[in-house]
């Protein structure tokens, strides 16, 4: 099981989404989420959305392990 986090506008689309999932890469997690939650899926496939695993930005095919924290990050807007 991996833990899921959604930030910024992605959080609005992820209100009904479970906080854990079985997936071996972020890409697979995104695919599974898009199948069940098409509105969220459209957002996650936006090219500007990045993914982090355990608080490091990673490529979408990064291998995941039990307990990995996977966060979906829209473009940042701080400052």
């Amino acid at each position, binding site marked *: 099981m991996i833990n899921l986090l959604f*930030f910024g506008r992605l959080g609005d689309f992820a209100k009904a989404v479970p906080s854990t999932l079985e997936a071996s890469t972020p890409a697979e997690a995104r695919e599974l989420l898009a199948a069940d939650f098409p509105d969220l899926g459209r957002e996650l496939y936006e090219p500007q959305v990045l993914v982090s695993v355990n*608080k490091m930005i990673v490529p979408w095919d990064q291998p995941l392990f039990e307990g990995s924290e996977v966060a979906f990050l829209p*473009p*940042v*807007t701080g*400052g």
Partner: protein
Amino acid sequence: MTSRIRIQQQDFDLAEEYELLRQTDSAVGAVVTFSGLVRDFEVEADVGVEDVTCAKKSIDSLSLQHYPGMTEKLLEAIVEQANTRWNLIATTVIHRVGDLAPREQIVLVGVASQHRAEAFEAAQFLMDYLKTQATFWKSIRRDNQQQWIHSKASDKQAAERWSRSKDE
């Protein structure tokens, strides 16, 4: 180099942070501070059929979300990069999170160095990178509706100029 990084809900005191920066060392000849404040409006693009117009729309409040644990690491990396590029004596980065009213302080970047050029450049670099790399997300509230702010192309361009060359 002395570096202070804080992410907090409560307000900060520029005077206090300035005193810490200037008192770091007797070699400090220049201190630059940048404070970002909540304006009472946001500029929004209205994309029409034939053209794009920009309108100022007033806001009731601003809200800042961040990714605890990741933001701190990213800010440390940004400060470390600035310190590699310029000869700095001390830096301060404070970013507030949570709900903020118009006119409140959002962010403070402060740099102490021997000479003014490096303090000015490093402060600008820190702000440009913070805006485009640190995991903060801003939303505005207006008429009881929350709306996420879009990232700005101008911020991306501002950050990109630092990767072109050091002296550009």
